[in-house]
C-alpha cells in the first residue's frame, strides 16, 4: 500500500460534500438542542445494500429545499460537528450502478456475472395509474403520483409525496 494511496483515501474521507437523492417526505424532528428542524432521508446511491442516510437536516438557510420531492438530487455538506446537512439542490442525480463480478483463479480472470442496481423514481404513467387502481390493491391514485422502479422497470413501491 503506497503512501499515495493512503493519502488519496484520507482525502476522500475528509471530503466535505457529497450528493444524494431525497428518499422520504420531509418531516420535522427535534435536534439535540430541542429545536424543530426539517429533515428527510437521503439515498447516497452507489449500489450498496443500505445506502440511505436517515434524518438529514436541512440547513437553515435552505428552506426552499423542503419543497423538493422524492427522487430529487440534493447536495450534502459536512457540518463542523461531522454531521451531514442538506445545503441545496443538485444538478446531478445518483442513478444506476452496473456491477460486474470477476473471478480470479491463479493467473486467469473471468467475468462471472453482472447486474444493474439502483432505483428510479418517476411519475406513474396513465397506463400504470390505470392498472393500479382498485381492486388491484392500491386504490385510486391521483395523477402525478410517483413510483419507485428498479432498473428493469419493475415497480417497487408507490412513493409518498
Amino acid at each position, binding site marked *: *500500500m503506497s503512501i499515495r494511496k493512503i493519502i488519496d483515501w484520507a482525502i476522500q474521507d475528509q471530503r466535505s460534500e457529497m450528493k444524494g437523492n431525497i428518499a422520504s417526505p420531509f418531516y420535522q424532528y427535534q435536534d439535540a438542542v430541542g429545536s424543530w428542524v426539517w429533515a428527510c432521508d437521503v439515498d447516497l446511491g*452507489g449500489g450498496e445494500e443500505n445506502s440511505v442516510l436517515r434524518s438529514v437536516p436541512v440547513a437553515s438557510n435552505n428552506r426552499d429545499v423542503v419543497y423538493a420531492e422524492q427522487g430529487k438530487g440534493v447536495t450534502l455538506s459536512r457540518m463542523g460537528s461531522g454531521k451531514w446537512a442538506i445545503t441545496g439542490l443538485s444538478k*446531478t442525480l445518483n*442513478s*444506476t450502478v452496473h456491477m*460486474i*463480478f470477476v473471478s480470479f483463479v491463479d493467473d*486467469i*480472470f473471468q467475468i462471472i456475472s453482472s447486474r444493474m442496481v439502483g432505483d428510479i423514481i418517476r411519475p406513474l404513467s396513465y397506463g400504470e395509474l390505470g392498472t393500479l387502481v382498485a381492486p388491484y390493491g392500491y386504490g385510486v391514485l391521483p*395523477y402525478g403520483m410517483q413510483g419507485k422502479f428498479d432498473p428493469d422497470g419493475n415497480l417497487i413501491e408507490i412513493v409518498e409525496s
Partner: protein
Amino acid sequence: MRYISASLQDVLDSRRRRPAYKIYAWDPGTVTISQIASATSNLNSSIPMPMDITPYASEISWSDKQLSFTMVDPRNLFHPDTGAYRNYLGDGAILRLVEGDEVLAETDWVTSFTGQIHGQVGWKKARNTGNITAKVSVFGRGETQAYKRRKITTREYTVGTDLGIALYDICETFMGLTQAEVRIPFTLGRQFKHKVNQLSQVSPWEGISSLLEVVCYLPYFDGEGKLTYVNKSLQRPMAKVLADYVRCVELEVPENSQDGINKVKVVFLDAALSRVDGPYQKLGDAQVTTGFFSMHERLECWWSEDHKQRADGTSMQVIKSVNSGLLPVGDESYEQKDEFHGEIEVAISVWVPILATVMAMAYVAAALIPDNTDSTSTQTMPVVLTGPEGTQGGFNLMAIGIGVGVETAEVVGEIHLNPGAVQSAEVVGFTIPWGRVIQAAAMLGIMLIMMSIGSAQYEVWGTPYDYAYLEKMSIAMEDGLDYWRENEKEIKNDFVGTHDQADTIAVTELVWEKSQVRTRRIVIEDDPSLEVGDIIGIPDGRKILINGLSKKIKRGEVPSLVIDGCKVLTP
C-alpha cells in the same frame, strides 16, 4: 517497445557485444529540453553541440525515471561556482544517455534517458584524499513538478470533439511540448459527450491522465523524453519472449505485504440529460384587476422566480373569476407558451367600454337639457312684481347711466300687469327636470359597469420537471467478496459517457490492480529495446508486465537489466 535499428538488434541477438554509452549535456541557457527532444538526433544541426561528459562520469546508475552518476572532475571544470563548464550541470541542465555498441555507428544507438538536473549537483573536495567528486542526479521529464502542481483551466471543447485534441492542447499550451514530442495518437477514438467541456483547476498531468484514463492509458515520458503511454489493457501481444533462461540472471518473487485493490468503482456523468418529473402541483398564480378600462389583460405566469423551472401538462384553475361581479364582462383563457411559462389572457367584452363611453356622454349631454315646468311664463324664473302701497300699479322707472359722467336719469314708460296670468300658486310647486332623470339613468349604467370591475385570481397547475445529469457507476469487483473485505478504488471521470465505456475501464483497472500485487523481478542481460509497459514472456509461459527498469552501467560490461514488474492475468 523501443525502436532499435536492425544492426543493433543483430548485435544484441549475436550476444557478442561491446557495450558503449555516452552522456551528453546541454547548457539550458542555449537550448530547451523541448528542442532536444524534438530533434531527430543528438548531433543535429538544429540544436547546439552537446558536451560529452562521458569521460568524467562513473558509477552510472540508470532507471526509467532517474539517471545518477559520480563526476570525477580533478580540474574543477564543473565546480558549481567557478567551473568553466558549470552550466552543463547547473539547474535545468539537459542530459541524455545514449547506449549502443562500439561496432556500430552512433546513429544506430538508442537514447535511453532524457532528463534535467533539478536544483544543483553535490560537489565535494576532500583534503585528506585529494579527491574531487560530484554527485549528479538527473530526473526524467515525468518528474517535473510543474506538470503536477500548477493548476490549469483549458479552453472549452464542444460535444463530439475527440479527447486527443484536448490532450494535444494541454501538451502544447501548458506543458510546452511540440507535436514531435508526443507519441500518443492524435485521435483517441473517444469524444466529449457533453455540450461544453473544460478541464478546470487540475494540473496538466492530471488533465492528460484523466483524458487517457478513458482509453485505459497511462501517460509517461520515454527515454527520448517524448510523451507516450502505457496501455493498461493486458490483453495485448508480448513485446518479447525469452526463449530460454540463458539470458536470465535472476528470477525473483519479491515480498509484497499489502492489501490489493479488489473493487474498482468508475463514476461518470451520463452524457444524456435525463428528464426528472416532479409531482403534479401548483406552479404559479396570477391576479388581475380589470374592467371597462382594459380590453385585454395578458398575465405571464412563470414556474419559478428565475424563469428556469420547466413544467408540462399545465392547466389554469380559476380561483376568482373576472365575471364574478354583477355582469359577465369578459372571457378568461390560458395557454402554455413554452416549458418555462404560460400566459393567462382576460378579454373584456367590447360592449363594456362602449356602454361606459355612451353612458358618460349621455350624462354630460343631459346636463345641457333645460329645466321645464307647466308655467306659461317663458321666463325660467317667475317674476312677482309688487308695487308699493298706494301706487296702484304705478312704478318709477329709472335708467341707470353707464360710464363716467353719465347720471342716472328718470325715464318714462309703462308696465302692464296682467294679474290674471300670474298666479302665485303656479310658481311654488315641485319641478322634476327631465335632464336629471336622464342623467340618473346614465349614471346608473356607469355605476353598473364600474361595479363589475373586480380582481380575478388564477392558479396554474402542472407537472414540473427538470433535466439532470445522471451520475452513473460501473463497479467491477472480485466475485464472492465479503463486504468487510472490500478494498475499493474509485475513479471519477466525466469524460466517460456510457456504461459500456465505464465497464471496460472498471474491469481493465481491476485486472490491472490485481496484477500489480503479483510482483515479479527479473534480472536479464541488458536489452535496450525494452520499455516500461511492455509485456515479456518468460520460458515457462508466464507473462510479466514491466513497471520499472534499472541497471548499473560500467565500461566494457554488458549491464544486467533489472525488470520490476508483475504477473499478467489473462482471461
